[in-house]
């Protein structure tokens, strides 16, 4: 098939009619304009959300660089066009295009989607359709691109099984070269049957080809999931890179010309987390902890700032204050003469303690407006259930430190609708906010405390995967209850997420293959950009469920039982099912589980199963407070965490 070499003149003709035309031009510093030869294997990396949200995504940028460094391999990028641009494109017959050379998406060998959030699923379908490629995998011809997806959401790939040819589970750094090699061989062989290349791809560790598995249902349950061929793995285990230091990417972080979220230099300082927060999918599926060597972090920061001209760097990870020697690394950046005192450093997901606030104080000498903490739940009981073992003293000392050091606004993140949650737990959020506001007023009259609550959505591959999500009306009732209480508190505000969106997210998160028909229906009825409140309508989802004979009770609201086949059971995140189940039972027993970096291994499976280990510079917890473990580590004293006898913790 012949494709236009570039759609640019036709794209440009549309730009005066859309908001934010800079979304569609490319031209970022760090962008690679590849050249194409007949033997080039070409990837279009698509982030199925707006340019502003997608551009900073580090996973996509890492793969973009690695692919463009590979001989005879090209990678370009694309993002979901906003609704105004989509309308223009459809009206003028302009297909989805890449940003670097504005080639049509269908001219690429692979369309590779990054899936970081479930509510983008309908955008994935829309992007495939805009590319002019059949939305259902079964309808595609050998001339069509291979459609694949990676990212955290693929730990339950089933809701997208009908639309995606293959999924990549886990870290992508190594596996993409193996995929490229298989696709190259298929191209050289004349791009014959799609089934051939998919079968070959299924032979790669970490690659899941859903069309090679039969799913048998028993009512709303799954009776079996089985590979169709003897040589296809019964369970696809995630890929894990052992040494983050071997992958100092991105080396040329993209610098957008227009404003995006996280518009600053980002350097990943470690991957994985062993805090063990039971609601956190990212923490469960990215184990073990792999720290980047401190010298490499400093080098990446210094090279990155120089190259990009940014005056701000974020040291990214799931809990950056846990990085061994975080204080030294941060100090090194600030004292670097090349940074000339104009660089600010930020740490996402601040740990809740005074030590962390101290670091934040050192690095944010200016612009002290707001600081965010995530206690996640309002009572110690509830925090033991979710294993976020922050004591009230931790929080109050952190908040006191923040206000005393000049911050005027403290934001607190909470989840609502957690397992075993009672009204007392919900009202505990108000109590924490009240105490924090009081502490703030001791330092400044302008002190405000913002409590932000989000409806909890249980995620696959976590101890809460069996939990029946709380319904929309009940969630709303709890939010109103909290709102009434918060109104009485001087200096405190409440913000909350729409509980309706939590239900749709729940359907997409833990649904099985039958959810594909629902996602397609929602998309066909115009439901794109579902994570944007101005575009989201729950009715579309409920009507689609109804039409396809599915009930939210079966797929979201009911508590699942041990022994039932979960839709993602044939995808391996490295965690033993026994570990997850025991941890779920511990949760119900309100028992915490300490961080295994600093306490003996409890054999979750992430290390032992894969023959890899935590890569940390120090086995000693950083100083200060309880470290979110609930233990008084600073004084080496008592251990207030109640541990169940069934655990091999000495």
């Amino acid at each position, binding site marked *: 098939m012949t494709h236009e070499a570039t759609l640019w003149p036709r794209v440009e003709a549309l730009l005066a009619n859309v908001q934010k035309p800079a979304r569609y031009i490319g031209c970022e510093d760090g962008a690679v304009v590849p050249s194409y030869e007949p033997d080039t294997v070409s990837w279009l990396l698509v982030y199925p959300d707006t340019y502003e949200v997608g551009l900073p995504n580090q996973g996509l940028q890492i793969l973009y660089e690695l692919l463009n460094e590979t001989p005879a391999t090209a990678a370009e990028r694309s993002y979901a066009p906003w609704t105004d641009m989509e309308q223009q494109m459809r009206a003028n017959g302009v297909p989805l295009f890449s940003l670097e050379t504005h080639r049509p998406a269908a001219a690429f060998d692979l369309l590779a989607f990054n899936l970081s959030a479930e509510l983008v699923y309908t955008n994935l379908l829309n992007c495939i359709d805009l590319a002019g490629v059949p939305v259902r995998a079964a309808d595609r011809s050998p001339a069509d691109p291979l459609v694949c997806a990676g990212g955290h959401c693929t730990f339950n790939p089933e809701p997208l099984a009908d639309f995606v040819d293959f999924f990549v589970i886990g870290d992508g750094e190594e596996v993409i070269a193996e995929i490229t090699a298989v696709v190259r061989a298929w191209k050289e062989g004349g791009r014959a049957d799609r089934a051939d290349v998919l079968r070959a791809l299924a032979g790669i560790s970490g690659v899941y080809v859903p069309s090679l598995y039969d799913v048998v249902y028993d009512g709303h349950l799954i009776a079996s999931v089985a590979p169709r061929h003897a040589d296809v793995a019964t369970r696809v285990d995630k890929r894990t890179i052992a040494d983050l230091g071997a992958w100092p990417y991105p080396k040329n972080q993209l610098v957008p010309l227009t404003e995006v979220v996280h518009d600053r230099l980002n350097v990943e300082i470690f991957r994985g987390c062993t805090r063990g927060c039971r609601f956190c999918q990212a923490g469960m599926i990215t184990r073990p902890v792999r720290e980047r060597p401190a010298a490499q972090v400093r080098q990446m920061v210094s090279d990155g700032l120089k190259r990009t001209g940014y005056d701000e760097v974020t040291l990214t990870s799931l809990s950056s204050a846990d990085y061994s020697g975080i204080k030294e690394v941060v100090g090194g950046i600030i004292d670097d003469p090349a940074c000339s005192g104009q660089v600010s450093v930020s740490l996402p997901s601040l740990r809740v303690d005074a030590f962390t606030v101290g670091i934040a104080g050192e690095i944010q000498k*200016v612009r002290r407006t707001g600081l965010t903490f995530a206690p996640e739940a309002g009572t110690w009981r509830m925090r033991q259930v979710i294993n976020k073992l922050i004591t009230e003293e931790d929080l109050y000392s952190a908040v006191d430190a923040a206000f005393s050091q000049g911050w005027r606004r403290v934001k607190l993140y909470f989840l609502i609708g957690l397992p075993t949650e009672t009204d007392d737990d919900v009202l505990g959020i108000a109590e924490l906010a009240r105490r924090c506001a009081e502490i703030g007023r001791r330092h400044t009259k302008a002190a405000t405390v913002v409590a932000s609550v989000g409806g909890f959505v249980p995620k696959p591959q976590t101890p809460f995967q069996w939990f029946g999500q709380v319904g929309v009306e009940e969630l709303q009732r709890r939010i109103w209850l909290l709102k009434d209480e918060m109104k009485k508190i001087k200096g405190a505000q409440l913000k909350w997420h729409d509980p309706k969106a939590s239900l749709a997210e729940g359907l997409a998160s833990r649904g099985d293959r039958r959810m594909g028909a629902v996602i397609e229906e929602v998309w066909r009825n115009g439901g794109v950009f579902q994570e944007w409140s101005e575009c989201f309508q729950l009715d579309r989802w409920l009507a689609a469920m109804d039409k396809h004979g599915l009930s939210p009770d079966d797929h979201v609201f009911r508590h699942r039982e041990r022994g039932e086949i979960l839709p993602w059971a044939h995808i391996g995140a490295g965690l033993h099912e026994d570990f997850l189940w025991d941890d779920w039972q511990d949760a119900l027993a309100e028992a915490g589980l300490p961080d295994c970096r600093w306490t003996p291994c409890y054999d979750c499976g992430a290390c032992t199963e894969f023959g890899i280990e935590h890569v940390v510079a120090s086995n000693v917890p950083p100083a200060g407070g309880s470290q979110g473990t609930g233990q008084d580590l600073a004084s080496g004293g008592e251990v207030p965490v109640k541990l169940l006898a069934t655990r091999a913790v000495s």
Partner: protein
Amino acid sequence: MKLRIRFQKLGKVRWISHRDIARCVERAVRRANLPVAYSEGFSPRPRISFGLALPTGAESLAEYLDIDFAANDVDTDAVGASLSGGLPVGLDVTKTAVLPVGTASLQEAVVSCRWEIGVFAANDGLIHDTAWFADAAQKLMAADEVVVTRERKGAIVTDDIRPNIAALSAEARPDGTPIFAAQLHTFPRGIRPAELGIALDLPVARLDVRRTHQWIAPDGALTEPLELDERSNQCLPPITPQPLAVVGVGPTGP
């Protein structure tokens, strides 16, 4: 010391906004490690003043900004080259000069701009009918009043833009493409080429707009804040690759 910088905006980068340009320039200044003066206060920013905003989507050969330096021994020529190196493709510095103390700001000094306006026809090609251009320009210049209705902050505003139009004529680009050449005053209000398009009853979305000059009038006569000369680093617009083959690949719609 202050430097005045003339730069151009050509090609794909025409679609970034005035604010985007400001951010690109700030980053380019830091990349080039220029000894720029910073503002005081909690949130120090490099002291850069930008001239008249260029509408998003328009190209320009004559954009300006003034940079305040913390040092007095700055090599003005080197500043231009190093800034260009840190700016996106299509944004290029063409001239730099030391600004004498007391020089009026760009916002105050610029009295009018010259614009070249090409017009795309419905079939996506440029209109090539030279006579049509001449006729339209003549009619508009002969009118006593040119009333344009536009939306501003949600309200419908109607006003006469004829006083803002100093001149309008039909001309041709070096390749023969006919264009409007318009001289538009910046006072009492700077009208946008799009408004001229409305007055000419043209589809606004299909104009190919390029600012070619900004004029100041220190002694009455019109002159550029910085005239280009043989030392100017003027680049040609980046070449956009043209379509090779067209086939019917496109979205089918849900």
